[in-house]
């Protein structure tokens, strides 16, 4: 199950990653890559897996159900010998460590330790000070002014001033900028002229004094604060070769980052590890553990956790995974529910699927309990609305659970005019009812296909599964419109509106319901939680009935870590990166 994504404003500061083949396939029932659990950047591809997709807005169930290590003496020698270093797996950092200019989310995980953004967000997605100690927005919401902390320094010891911030915003608006930062979509005043080469600087960016900088937008944008409040690049270092219209030289600096984060890069060994050491020029408290290593590791991570080669890993919460973790004895186990939901995207441009009754029939006729709960051995539950169960907006009131009901599904199809024809396959106007399903290669897909094929056969629907070895092919197939159903999962969701984005921005093609759009806008107009709850309830009831996509499941995960580590927490937005400076290793005999 893959993400198909739109990303909330609050996490747009972070890099989106390109999906890797590996990231797609190791999400099988057994052991997500620890890699992804290192997931610092919420919007990266790591959101596919555990870690980064930790409970959005509510890291609630963290403490509840946690299991403490039973016997620390079982700690493998390899882990015991490390006294000043913590190791976490990361699928595949490639060495491009400049924020905004990197292509892979794994590199984003690395740079999130090396850089601190101007504005951070807390676990409730509220902005809190980062490099900027405060900021204000103008009445019309078009001008933002940031006030930097005093005495900020880059890891090379040079001072950080408003000049650097201005440089960062400027280069992101360069014509040749090829990253996926959203800064260039904000419409900073004068940015178009700069892009076209008609102006030598961006009019809307104004430096008041070395500690104060303001930026004016063409029009107000709610996401501007966190988008602008990203990492800061040193003008002296990254800007010395910059000529307007040519950012190509940035490539040569990608392996030698100069940052502002709690750690600095010591050494990157391609395909093996990324070593960090505490950054003495970091403005905050010095990290409690002086060294940190991201170990490049892929696939089944059991062997690395069991042999003590990594200190942290995340797994899907099957009973046997938990039992096995318990039997290890030396890890603390913390269950959590990622704030995502899985769904089957329905091709609404296909005639048969335009009919709501057909979509409902396909939902009733699919034994989701078997696929997502039983076969997943408890590491999942059934979804019926576009919201994670840990969201404050989650509700089951007035929500149709679409419990598996073959007769109901059959009668819905009958009503829709699909009658059983030759060979038991339903037909309408001489056309057979066939479902062309796309999935990427994983154990979950195998399970889905096996069950769905049997279910839909019983329903009189011809089910044609197709499996893709790599995610890129799958996506381009979906873009080409040659499918009926495809399995996806959202990235980490924060605000209830995040989970609805795909129905608004045209990603789910062919769904337009004025009532839904109206409600969606209404939901964003107010900040009153009770009012919003009511609005989202209405939206969920609407979507639950209309089924523009078929909702499938929620994942359940656990993360396990070497019990020597204290103060470990997983932030819904920064993954491990936020609490990492506080991690400490306690002594064991």
């Amino acid at each position, binding site marked *: 199950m893959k993400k198909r994504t739109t990303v909330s404003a609050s996490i747009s500061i972070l890099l989106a990653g390109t999906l890797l083949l590996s990231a797609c*396939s190791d999400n*099988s029932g*057994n*052991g997500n890559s620890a890699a992804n659990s290192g997931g610092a950047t919420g919007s990266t591809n790591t959101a596919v897996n555990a870690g980064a997709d930790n409970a959005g807005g509510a890291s609630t169930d963290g403490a509840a159900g946690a299991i403490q290590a039973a016997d620390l003496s079982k700690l493998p020698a390899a882990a015991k010998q490390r006294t000043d270093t913590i190791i976490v797996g990361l699928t595949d950092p490639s060495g491009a460590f400049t924020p905004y200019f990197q292509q892979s989310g794994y590199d984003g995980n690395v740079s999130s330790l090396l850089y601190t953004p101007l504005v951070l967000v807390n676990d409730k997605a509220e902005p809190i000070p980062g490099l900027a100690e405060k900021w204000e927005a103008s009445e019309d919401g078009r001008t933002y002014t940031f006030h930097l902390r005093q005495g900020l320094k880059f890891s090379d010891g040079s001072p950080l001033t408003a000049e650097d911030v201005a440089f960062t915003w400027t280069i992101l608006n360069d014509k040749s900028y090829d990253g996926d930062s959203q800064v260039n979509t904000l419409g900073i005043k004068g940015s178009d002229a700069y892009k076209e080469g008609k102006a030598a600087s961006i009019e809307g960016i104004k430096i008041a004094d070395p500690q104060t900088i303001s930026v004016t937008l063409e029009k107000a944008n709610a996401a501007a604060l966190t988008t602008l409040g990203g990492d800061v690049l040193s003008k002296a270092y990254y800007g010395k070769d910059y000529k307007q219209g040519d950012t190509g030289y940035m490539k040569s600096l990608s392996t030698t980052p100069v940052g502002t984060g709690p750690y600095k890069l010591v050494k990157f060994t391609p395909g093996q590890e990324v070593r960090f050491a505490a950054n003495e020029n970091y403005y905050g408290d010095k990290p409690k553990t002086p060294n940190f290593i991201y170990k490049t590791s892929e696939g*089944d991570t*059991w*062997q690395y956790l069991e042999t003590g080669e990594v200190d942290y890993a995340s797994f899907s919460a099957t009973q*046997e*995974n938990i039992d*096995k973790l318990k039997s290890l004895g030396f890890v603390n186990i913390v269950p959590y529910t990622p704030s995502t939901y899985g769904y089957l995207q329905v091709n609404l441009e296909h005639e048969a699927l335009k009919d709501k009754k057909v979509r409902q029939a396909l939902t009733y006729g699919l034994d989701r309990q*078997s696929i997502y709960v*039983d*076969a997943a051995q408890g590491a999942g539950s059934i979804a019926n609305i576009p919201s994670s169960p840990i969201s404050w907006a989650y509700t089951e009131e007035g929500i149709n659970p679409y419990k598996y009901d073959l007769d109901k599904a059959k009668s819905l199809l009958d009503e829709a005019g699909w009658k059983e024809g030759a060979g038991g396959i339903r037909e309408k106007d001489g056309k057979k009812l066939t479902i062309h399903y796309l999935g*990427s*290669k994983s*154990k979950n897909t*195998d*399970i889905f*296909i*096996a*069950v769905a*094929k*049997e279910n839909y056969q019983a329903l009189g629907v011809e089910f*044609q*599964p*197709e*499996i*893709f*070895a*790599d995610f890129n*092919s799958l996506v381009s*197939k979906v873009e080409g419109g*040659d499918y009926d159903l495809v399995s996806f999962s959202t990235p980490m969701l924060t605000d209830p509106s995040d989970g609805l984005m795909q129905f608004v921005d045209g990603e789910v093609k062919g769904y337009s319901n004025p009532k839904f759009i109206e409600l969606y806008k209404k939901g964003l107009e107010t900040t009153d939680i009770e009012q919003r709850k009511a609005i989202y309830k209405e939206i969920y009831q609407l979507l639950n009935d209309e089924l523009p996509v078929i909702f499938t499941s929620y994942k359940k995960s656990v993360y396990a870590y070497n019990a020597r580590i204290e103060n470990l927490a997983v932030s819904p937005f920064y993954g491990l990166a936020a609490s990492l400076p506080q991690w400490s290793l306690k002594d064991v005999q």
Partner: protein
Amino acid sequence: MSLAKGELAGPGKAGAKAKAAAKSSLWSDSLRRLLKNKLAVFGFAVVVFMFAVCFLGPMFSPYADNKINMALMNKAPSAKHWLGNDALGRDVLTRVLQAGRISLTVGLASMVLSVLLGGLLGIIAGYYRGVADQIIMRVADLLLTIPSLPLLFIAGALLSEWKVPPDYRMYIVMIMLAIVGWPGLARMVRGQILSLREREFMQATTVLGLRSRRKLFNHLFPNLVPLLIVIATLNIGGAILSESVLSFFGLGVTPPTPTWGNMIDAANNMIDFEKRPWLWIPPGLSIFVTVVAINIFGDGLRDVLDPKKGR
């Protein structure tokens, strides 16, 4: 596949004797000798057994419909389910047998295809030389420069783009294996022919003024057979293994259709390794036994058919 030229040579029975007599004695002689090679006979018996069991077995299974039964999920072997149940409660024994049908078919068909393709092109190139040789060998060189696995990946993606129904993917897998496999094979066959052409017995056929076809089929071909057999047997085994690798990458047969390869792949994780040997031992052992048996048999056959191995 690194066996090569020069495995065999020399003048055989293909002398000037009456051909009918030569032929019948060659075959009966060979059979007699084959039967003496106990290991080869055993290998053959195992192969036949595997085929018989896989193709007939599922007919007697009460679980042949592969129904999903969550209540039996991952159950250990029992009196009712001799080899236990898989992650969806399906009977492992039945699935292994059904998988065998496909894996064996894939192996056999892919072998036939690539031996025909590679053998034919190799013979044409080696025997007729000239332009045909140039064209065939240059195309082979070209194909050899493209690494096979990426080629399979790309082919997989393209097949989907060209809307080849997934049910036919199995056959496509076979064709892909053959296409990837033929250049190496053609080179080998060609090399063998080049070497044979220079032998005295072939030169004698030229001196005797034999017709081209007769030279090819009566004199050259019998000397090629042992090589082709070795290649063929290696190829069946190789194709069965390749199928498992394709499954590992997600390029193989689409589930729920079982193959030995995708059954092993489904159990290829630490937990199943530790806790549920009945998921991976049956398909693993099936591949193992089949490939070993085919190879033993092929080895024996080669020894027997080798024309220069008189007594």
